[in-house]
């Protein structure tokens, strides 16, 4: 067996083992899962919401994961299950803080502001910073589609919009971000 394949297999076995142990109440196993996945979850949360919310929401994701572990049946990888849970927590947070649907749909106006900035100052902005400066609707669609690989139909369902809105937001986000490509 090639070394990398064996390493991947052992890592997957370890995560599956830890998820089974954590579901039985083993907090040490759950801490190992946290250490393995926290960077991915925190980055997703930070990109989807404001950076100053990321720590609290990340903690919330893992606490909910602990509460829901008994429902994890192992049909998908633990990382996939956790990631989907994180997206759901983020979207619930978005709803709870009153980011209403109307603002999502009407997010083109602030996007115009982003895209119309002069070129030179924009180039000095880091791509991640530029992503963070996008209006929330466009930012979330961009992250879900281009970074996380969800399809427009899935995004539309998650966000409660039509796929056409998701496509439009994605295009506007890309148009804004093209000015921030590191050259």
């Amino acid at each position, binding site marked *: *067996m090639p*070394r990398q394949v*064996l*390493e991947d297999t*052992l*890592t997957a*076995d*370890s995560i*599956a*083992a*830890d998820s*089974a*142990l954590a*579901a*039985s*109440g083993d*907090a040490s196993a*759950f*801490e190992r899962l*946290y*250490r393995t996945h*926290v*960077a*991915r979850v*925190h*980055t997703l949360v930070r990109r989807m919401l404001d950076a100053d919310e*990321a*720590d609290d929401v*990340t*903690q919330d994701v*893992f*606490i909910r994961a*602990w*509460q829901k572990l*008994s429902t994890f049946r192992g049909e998908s990888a633990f990382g996939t299950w956790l990631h989907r849970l994180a997206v759901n927590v983020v979207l619930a947070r978005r709803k709870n803080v009153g980011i209403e649907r109307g603002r999502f749909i009407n997010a083109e106006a602030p996007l115009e502001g982003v895209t119309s900035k002069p070129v030179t100052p924009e180039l000095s902005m880091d*791509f*991640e910073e530029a992503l963070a400066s996008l209006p929330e609707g466009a930012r979330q669609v*961009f992250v879900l589609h*281009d*970074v996380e690989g969800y399809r427009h139909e899935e995004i539309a369902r998650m966000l409660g919009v039509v796929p056409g809105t998701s*496509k439009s937001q*994605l*295009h506007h986000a*890309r*148009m804004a*971000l*093209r000015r921030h*490509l*590191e050259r």
Partner: protein
Amino acid sequence: MNDQWTNRLSEYIDGELDRSERAVLEAHLATCGQCYATLGELRQVVARAKSLEDTPPTTDLWTGIARAIRSEQTPARRDRLVRRRFSLTVGQLLAASIALVLLSGGSAWFALQSSQSPEPTRIGGSTQRPRVGQVVTWTGHTDAAIADLQTALAQNEKRLDTATVRIVREALAIIDRAIADARIALQKDPGNAYLNLHLADTMRRKVELLRRVNDMAAARS
């Protein structure tokens, strides 16, 4: 640059235009340098998004999480979880512990794989120093014990529920793969102390698992 076309560039990149729309847009791109340049930039944005890296939080969040889950981990919850898990997936927990052992063993194996072992191998209380090219021969007694236990399991497993049997078989398959890998590695490096111990430990775990499952089946008879 025409908005009619630029607004379709993302759909073009994502392959969401039908054949006729695609043909019309490509004809436009052949004549419009600005749209062509924008297309290139949008493709770079898509590529950049895929290359973004994850970064951990600057502070360790585990303390707060641990505090929260500890407050939830009342004895009642623990008992409920353990009882439910044991009633449904005894074998899964066995597999879990085995997989963790194999992981630690496998990692050490990688670390040692390139090095020869100058140290003698201690197996079953005695010290041996296998020679290069020597085939592992010390496993005979364990092989026999495993064969006996597997025969017993074949007769006993009908007393176990299907899910447990399946999980036990999966766990045994994992162990057998690890044993096979260790034997192959030992053919190349018979003197490697770690590999000998790893094989012995893995076989011991197989014996333990078979004994435990047989005991479990016997308890249900």
